[in-house]
C-alpha cells in the first residue's frame, strides 16, 4: 500500500494522519509535509501512526528531522501509535525516549496542552 497523508488542526495543534507504508520511497513525501507545516508556523505537531503498516529507518529519520525542526522553534512532535510492530522499531532504536508516544490523538493533544 502506498502512503496517504492528511492533516488538520485541533485545539491549535496540527495533527498529521499517516496511512500506509513509510519507507525509502514514500518517506520524502512525509518529510515535505512536515517541512511545509513548520514553514507555516506549526510547531506543535502530532503524527498519528495508527494506520501505518510499515516503518523503516528512513521513516524514523524523517520523524527525527521533523522533531529537530519544531524544537528549533520550541515546539514538539508527538506520536500516536499502539501497534506493537511499529513500537518495536522505536524501542530497538532507543527513540521511545525521544518521542512522546501516545495511545490516541486526544491523549497526545491533552499531553501537549499540559506541557504548555
Amino acid at each position: 500500500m502506498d502512503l496517504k497523508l492528511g492533516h488538520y488542526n485541533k485545539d491549535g495543534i496540527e495533527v498529521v494522519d499517516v496511512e500506509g507504508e513509510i519507507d525509502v520511497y514514500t518517506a520524502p513525501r512525509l518529510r515535505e509535509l512536515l517541512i511545509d507545516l513548520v514553514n507555516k508556523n506549526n510547531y506543535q505537531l502530532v503524527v498519528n501512526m495508527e494506520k501505518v503498516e510499515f516503518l523503516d529507518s528512513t521513516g524514523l529519520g524523517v520523524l527525527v528531522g521533523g522533531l529537530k525542526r519544531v524544537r528549533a522553534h520550541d515546539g514538539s512532535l508527538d506520536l500516536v501509535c499502539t501497534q506493537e510492530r511499529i513500537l518495536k522499531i522505536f524501542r530497538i532504536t532507543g527513540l521511545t525516549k525521544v518521542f512522546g508516544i501516545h495511545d490516541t490523538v486526544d491523549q497526545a493533544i491533552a499531553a501537549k496542552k499540559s506541557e504548555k
Partner: protein
Amino acid sequence: MATVEVTFTPLPAHVRTARLVATAVARRSGVDESLLDEVRLAVGEACSRAVEAHQRHCPAEPVRIEMTDHDQRFVVTVSDHAPTSRPAVAATENGIHDGAGHDGAGHDGAGHDGAGHDGAGHDGAGEDGIGYEAIGHDGGSAIPAGFGLAVISGLAEDVRVLSTSSGVSVRMSWPSTAAS
C-alpha cells in the same frame, strides 16, 4: 542454489517489491509468522542501503537478493556492487552496537555464538576499517550513517556484513522449518 534470486534496478520504489518477495518466500520456507515482520523490515533496510549506495556510485548496476534455505535456516543475502568508503566507520560501529544493545527481544545470542558471525559482521566492520555509506536520511536528519544496519542487527538474530572492494553483502537468517 538459491531458492529465489531477485535483481532490481536501484530505485527506492522497488524496495517495497523486494520486501514483499522476501516475506512471501520466508513464509513459504516455513519461517514462523511472528518473525515475518522482522524479515520484511530487515530485508527492506538492507535493500534501502544498497539502493542508496548504487544510486551514488553505480546507478546502472542492479541490486541483488538471494533467498535460500540452509540447515533449517531461511537465509537472505542482499548484495551491492558499490565501492565501499571509510568515513562512516565510527558511526556504523556505534550504530550496530547500539542497535544490538537496545534489543530487548532476546534475539542476541543465537546468532552471535560460534561460526565467527560476530567477528565477520559486527566487530569486523568497525575494527577493520570497513565503512558504509550513509543511508539516505537527507534533509538534515539526526539519523547517523549505518542506522539501517543497526536496525537490522536489532531485528535479526544472525547478521553478517561482509565488505570487499567490489561491494557489501548483508547476510541475514531466521529459523525455518523447511528441509534444506
